[in-house]
């Protein structure tokens, strides 16, 4: 129920709106920058120019880093989805003690500060010879993304009635058969959500990249980081704009799917 808004509430709403403007608008500044007609970071002076967008495709550094990111993130998402959902389903079937151990392990990458993890990876990869390799980076992305898949799939399992599994088993279905034909189809929204969040996490990851990669593996966030530190090329604004778009698409898809499944 909504009570008639008092003066105080209206005042508070105004403040809230200002805060949300502060939250939402700043990132949008990159959009006009990406269309600037000058060759340095600036707002468009006379006309809008698509030159920098063209540079995204023609400049091998941007093009290759984009493709590398796409490849790494796709592979990482698939792996994180598999590992994370399996762990969530396993934990769901376990007794309380074991379940909290698994849950704690699965959420560790969220709890430990990223910088600490980055340091740990760096030292480990020196020993293992995985510095600046795709395998090394993919492992870090899978570890970072798995908690998100775990949370998403666990939430979906919260709404899944285990008696559906009992019913299937009582009719003679083997456990793996039950998993494939009953459980997974019923938690599909959670799987898709988890995959989308895993992709975003992998796509945006930078801190660990700074520690474990140099030249050979050059992903998009790294390219952006170098670009921002050089602070000249407006192409980085184009990348930023595209990243806003991709995030928006992923989010809207996820929300639309959630809405469709009656969330």
């Amino acid at each position: 129920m909504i009570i008639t808004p008092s003066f105080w509430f209206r005042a508070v709403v105004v403040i809230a709106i200002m805060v949300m403007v502060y939250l939402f608008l700043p990132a949008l500044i990159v959009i006009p920058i990406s269309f600037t007609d000058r060759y340095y970071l600036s707002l468009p002076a006379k006309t809008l120019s698509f030159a920098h967008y063209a540079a995204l495709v023609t400049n091998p550094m941007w093009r290759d880093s984009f493709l590398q990111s796409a490849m790494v993130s796709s592979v990482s998402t698939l792996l994180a989805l598999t590992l994370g959902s399996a762990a969530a389903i396993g934990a769901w079937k376990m007794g309380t003690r074991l379940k909290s151990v698994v849950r704690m392990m699965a959420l560790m990458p969220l709890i430990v500060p990223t910088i600490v993890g980055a340091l740990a990876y760096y030292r480990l990869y020196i020993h293992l010879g995985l510095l600046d390799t795709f395998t090394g980076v993919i492992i870090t992305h899978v570890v970072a993304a798995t908690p998100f898949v775990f949370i998403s799939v666990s939430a979906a399992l919260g709404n899944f009635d285990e008696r559906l599994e009992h019913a299937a088993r009582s009719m003679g279905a083997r456990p793996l058969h039950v998993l494939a034909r009953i459980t997974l189809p019923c938690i599909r929204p959670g799987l898709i959500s988890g995959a989308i969040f895993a992709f975003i996490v992998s796509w945006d990851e930078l801190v660990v990249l700074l520690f474990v990669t140099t030249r050979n593996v050059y992903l998009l966030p790294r390219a952006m980081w170098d670009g921002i530190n050089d602070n000249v090329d407006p192409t980085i604004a184009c990348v930023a704009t595209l990243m806003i778009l991709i995030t928006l698409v992923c989010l809207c898809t996820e929300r639309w799917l959630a809405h469709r499944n009656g969330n």
Partner: protein
Amino acid sequence: MPRISLPLALAAPAVILIGAMFCLPVLQILALSFTEPRIGLENYVALATDPLYLHIIATTLRICAWTTLVAVVLGYVVAYVMANVTDRIRGWMMIFLLVPFWLSVLVRAFAWSFLLTRNGFVNATLMTLGIISQPLHLLYTETGVIIGMIHYMLPYAVLPMLTTMVGIDKSLVVAARSLGAGPVRTFLRVWLPLSLPGVMAAIVLVFIMSLGFFITPALLGGGKTVMIAQYIQFGISETMNWGVAAAFATALLVAVMLSLVLASRTMRIKNLFGAT
């Protein structure tokens, strides 16, 4: 042949991967802080005595404290409004909250680095409104870093508080008003106390995230404002001082763990990580 339990087989790959490739290496870093370059506590002694390190710790704590304070206060206002509007409006507000939430921190920091320049958007607006006469020096200062960090942390502050507030029984507010309490008193005596668990969660979450923050302070601090995370990277790439870097990392980890333990006394951890 003994049957391997299906639940264990399902959970094993993730647990083994995270355990071997993440947890163990992190523990090794912890150990490193006590063994490099010599076995002992000298790294921690240095942390506690060397003026440079103390300055970094103080800077970090100061920035984190300000960020947490402002983010939680502003976040409270947003959460309050979101909890008290219709579902439809809340849905729209949620989108405005979630888009920046999921947007790359790099994009956001980059945007701020453009907005905070001397003739950037922020200064221009403030001067137009007549609040200042001279452009403020915002970029590459502590203030700039705090502005950028608050921007990142706001959704993390709003979400736990929103979860708690949505669960507050609205009829309690109606009851208080019907008993004669005005809006301010109702807020102070009924709503605020009931919303405190969410506030605690928000404070803990924002604080522990701010402690280890890297990208925003690096981009907006410009080498002048140095927080712990930046120094760790500097220590590895420039001075090769593994011992101190590991000590800082360990201190960070311990601070985070302690905060979580404290928080788990007041509310369930699950809410922190299920807040999306």
